[in-house]
């Protein structure tokens, strides 16, 4: 089994499956916080997928996207949390 195959048949399925699990949590909620946490986790796993995919396709360029994801996704969380609190205050 080559590395590519290993990634394709073992690693990516596991990660993809995790995505599904997280997405189920997103669907189930029940609170908005749970959903936001789920989305946050999805993005983080997305970084992982990109890492694996860059290896699989031999394109290190994709890692730059992962870099941006890592930097920016955080801001979404900041915004959401600020929003939930703001709503509560009223």
């Amino acid at each position, binding site marked *: 089994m080559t590395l590519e195959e290993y990634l394709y048949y073992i690693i990516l399925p596991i990660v993809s499956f995790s995505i599904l699990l997280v997405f189920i949590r997103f669907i189930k909620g029940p609170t908005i916080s749970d959903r936001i946490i789920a989305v946050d986790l999805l993005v983080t796993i997305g*970084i992982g997928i990109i890492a694996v995919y860059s*290896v699989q396709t031999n394109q290190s360029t994709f*890692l730059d996207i*992962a870099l941006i994801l890592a930097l920016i996704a955080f801001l979404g969380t900041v915004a959401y949390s600020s929003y*939930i609190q703001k709503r*509560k*205050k009223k």
Partner: protein
Amino acid sequence: MISIIIVVLATLGALFVLLAGIGILRMPDTYLRMAVTTKAATLGVGLLLGAAAVYFNDLSTTTRVLAIIVFILLTAPVGAHLMGRASYIVGNKLWEKSVMDDLEGKYSKSSVKDKKPAEPDSEEGSTIPED
């Protein structure tokens, strides 16, 4: 040799990611979900990125991978902190088997004390416009 390292890193990473997935699904309250996922995912993704760094085996890629990992380490806990705090303020209940809550009453009197048990996914807030 290098492939083996990659395989090991990738496998471990994938497993930790999976762990985070199972964790977020199984854990009974928001805080516990967060507690599990923040780190499992961070570690898992870190390992996957490490695998990539090893695979490409050049300096600029490695530094970029390190940068990503640093960024995640920097931002993930801050994010978790913000969400945890926000959830608590909003009134997300702790799991019923929780043993203590030192934060109780620390936020404004109204918000936590008379917390309506977190309205599952209802619209937060009133219909009165703010301004």
